[in-house]
C-alpha cells in the first residue's frame, strides 16, 4: 500500500493534527514503509479466527452506579490553558 500526499493530508485532518506542508512527502515515505511492514499480515489466512481484543479474553467489569468521584474543579482548572468563571474557554464555535 503506497499512500499519496492527499491521503496523508486527509488522514491528518481526521486526526486533527497539523503537519507542515513541506513535511508531507516525508510522511508519505514513512507511512508507506510502515504500511508495507503491516501488509505482512496478509501472508496468513485468518478466516474464522475470533478477534482478540483483551489479551485475557476478559470482559468489562461492571460496578454499582454510585458516585465515586468528588468535585475537584478548582484543582483541575489550575492546569487548564484558559478558564473563566469555572468554565474552559475555546474560540467561538457558534456565530
Amino acid at each position, binding site marked *: 500500500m503506497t499512500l499519496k500526499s492527499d491521503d*496523508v493530508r486527509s*488522514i491528518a485532518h481526521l486526526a486533527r493534527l497539523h503537519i507542515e506542508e513541506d513535511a508531507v512527502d516525508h510522511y508519505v515515505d514513512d507511512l508507506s514503509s510502515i504500511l508495507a511492514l*503491516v501488509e505482512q499480515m496478509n501472508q496468513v489466512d485468518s478466516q474464522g479466527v475470533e*478477534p482478540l*481484543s483483551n489479551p*485475557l479474553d*476478559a470482559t*468489562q467489569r461492571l460496578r454499582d452506579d454510585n458516585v465515586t468521584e468528588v468535585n475537584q474543579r478548582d484543582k483541575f482548572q489550575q492546569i487548564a*490553558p484558559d478558564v473563566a468563571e469555572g468554565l474552559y474557554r475555546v474560540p467561538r464555535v457558534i456565530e
Partner: protein
Amino acid sequence: MPMTVTEIRQGLASGQFSSVEITRDYLQRIAQHNPALNCFISVTEDLALQQAGAADALLAQGNPGLLTGVPLAHKDLFCTDGVKTSCGSRMLDNFIAPYDATAVERIRDAGAVMLGKTNMDEFAMGSSNENSWYGNVANPWNTAHVPGGSSGGSAAAVAAGLAPAATGTDTGGSIRQPAALCGVTGIKPTYGRVSRYGMIAFGSSLDQGGPFARSAADCALLLQAMSGFDARDSTSSDTPVDDYSARLEQGIEGLKIGLPKEYFAEGLDSRLARVIETAIDELRKQGAEILDISLPNTHLSIPTYYVVAMAECSSNLSRFDGVRFGHRCENPVDLEDLYKRSRGEGFGAEVKRRILIGTYALSAGYYDAYYLKAQQLRRMIKNDFQTAFDSVDLILGPTTPEVAFKIGAKTDDPVSMYLQDIYTISLNLAGLPGLSLPVGFVDGLPVGMQLIGNYFDEARLLQVAHRYQQVSDWHLQAPEAFS
C-alpha cells in the same frame, strides 16, 4: 556505591544509615552524573528529603513497611500528584498531575521515597529514548549508545546507581528492552497485574507497569508493592498476588524451559546468541530441563503489534486537544485550528507517525483489513504460547536481537527501529509476563536474557532469575564511569 534495595533495607533496619542520609547520597549522585546521562526529567529533592524524614521516624518506631525509606524513581508516565508529569512530551511540559497513579500510591504507601521522574520516549513510543522532548538518554556502559526505550531513563538510572530501583511501563518491550541494554533486571507482569490507573495510556490492551532493579530479589519487593486489584482500572485482575520474595528460594530442579527456535533464528547477533547459550548451560546445571519448542507465528508479531498499538494510541491520544490541560497553540483562529496546531506543536515526529497510521487503520473502509485482521492474528499468537505452555513451564530467549546501538543509528528508519522489539512485543499481544536479566556482554555492552512465563506466573520468573543470580555476578557489575 551502587547498592541493592535489599542492602538498603538491611542498612536502614540496622541503623547503619538513615533514609535521609541514603537519599542525600542518591540526590548527590544524580546531581553529579545526570548531566552526562539525562536520566531524569525532574528531580524532586525537597519532596524526597521530606519523605525520607518521615520514613526515618517510622523506622525509629520499629514498624517499617516493605520499602520504608528506600529511595527510587518513577518513569515520567506515572501521574504524581502535584509533580510535573510530562510523558516525555512537549504536550505535557506544563502538566502538573492532579492525582497519583495507583502504582505510585502503593509504592509510597509501602514507604518508598521518590527521588524524581525519569526520562522516556515521548508517550512511551520508541525503543531508544531518542524520541523524548527532553533529549536522549545515554547508556551508562557507553554514553555514545542508546539505553533502549521507552523506559530508558529508569533503566539507565538504575544501571548508573542514580537510583537503586525505578518504575517503568511496557507496551511492546519498554521495560525488558532497556533493562537488557542497560544490564539491569526488569519485569513486565501479566496484563492486569499492576493497575493502569494514572499511567498515561498508549495502547490500553497492551500497557503494563513494572519495576527495574539490580536483582530479581529487588524486583520481587517492588512488584509486591505495585501489584494487586484496583477498582479504578477496569481491566485490573483480581487473581490473588503471590508472595514473590517467599518463593524466590525454591529450586529450579526439573523445571521445563522451552527455547523457541524462532527466537534463535536469522536476525539474532551470533555473539549475543553464544552469551545466551552459556546462560542456558548454567540453568541446565542448576537442574532445569531444556526443550526445543516452536512459536510459529512469531514473524507476525511485529505487523500485528504495530497495527494494534497505533490504532489504540490514535484513540488514546485524541484526549490531548489543548482544551483542559497540556499544550495550547497561540492565537487559534477557531476550534479546529486550536486542536490541529496544539497537537501539531505538542507532539513529536514518532508520535505523529503513529497517530496517523492508527487513524488510517481505524478509518472507514480499512478497519477490517487492518484492526480486525490484527486482532485475529493476535489470537493466533496467543494460541502459540498456550500450546507451548502445555509442554513447558517457562520460555526463554534473548530479550533483543543485538546489544545497544549507537545514538542516531536508526533514527531515520522507523521500521528498523520497530524490529528491535521482535522478541518482546508478542508477550504484550498475548498479555503474558516477561523478565529480562543480564547474562553477559558483547563489545562491552550488556546482553539481556528474557524469561517468559504463563499468566500470573511472575513468581516463577523471579525465582529462576534469582537462582541464576545466585550463581553468576553479571547483575552485580556496574559501569566503571559510574561505579
